[in-house]
């Protein structure tokens, strides 16, 4: 799975360049995220702007990656398309993750 990452301002932005995080892609997605994320990075923003479909397997993978980070680290999500946003809302994961409408705004946004 094509995942790219770069530091932008105070955030480490991980961009998923794939249309689907489904059951066929979930394990790959998890592995790639672990590869690109440096240990100890404080604030990660997962840019899902290119993703138009996520299922419960993909959601489980996002949760799993977050759980492997330390409590002091933050994982936020940005640029969710409607079908992806809906999955986070249906499962109430929108109450667990900070979700930004827009990546540029998220990078500029220094949450207290």
């Amino acid at each position, binding site marked *: 799975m094509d995942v790219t990452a770069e530091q932008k301002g105070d955030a480490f932005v991980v961009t998923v360049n794939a249309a689907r995080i489904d059951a066929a892609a979930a394990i790959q997605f998890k592995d790639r995220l672990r590869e690109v994320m440096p240990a100890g990075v404080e604030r990660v923003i997962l840019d899902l702007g290119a993703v138009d479909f996520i299922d419960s397997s993909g959601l*489980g993978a996002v949760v799993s990656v977050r759980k492997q980070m330390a409590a002091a680290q933050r994982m936020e999500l940005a640029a969710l398309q409607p079908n992806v946003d*809906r999955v986070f809302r249906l499962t109430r994961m929108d109450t*667990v993750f900070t979700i930004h409408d827009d990546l540029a705004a998220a990078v500029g946004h220094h949450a207290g």
Partner: protein
Amino acid sequence: MQVEGDASPASGRTDVIPDLRLAFFGTPLSVRRALARVREACAELGEADSGTVELALAEALNNVVEHAYSDRETGPVNLRLHHDGDAIRVVLRDHGAPMPVDGLPSGIPGDLPDSLFDLPEGGFGWLIIRDLAQDFAYRREGRVNTLTFRIPVLGPVA
């Protein structure tokens, strides 16, 4: 197929989507291909409805691949869709392990844990499908599982 200007909102709604029958082996990649066909077939319902149908079916099919079948074993899956006015009726068959006798799973419990480190990484599937679909019925006949349900849709956008 075309739904042109003569299709008033009240007419022709029941069969806007032609019946779809798909047969395939239950693997994650074949589920992905089946969902692409479903998405294409439901395109005329509009982005919101076709997304709903795809997501509900994704969860139902993932459940077959992960539970009825398993990592080591797969088998045939039959999927039938019928557009019935305000819903897509689904019949899903497989030859895998039976579902639990005490009924369909409800998904994860209603309350989320206080710490995100206690969050479940699975169990979201039934939470999603129960939100998007209704009128579930399951039966086991011989070695065949049949799950039927309805996915409410709004129909073609005007």
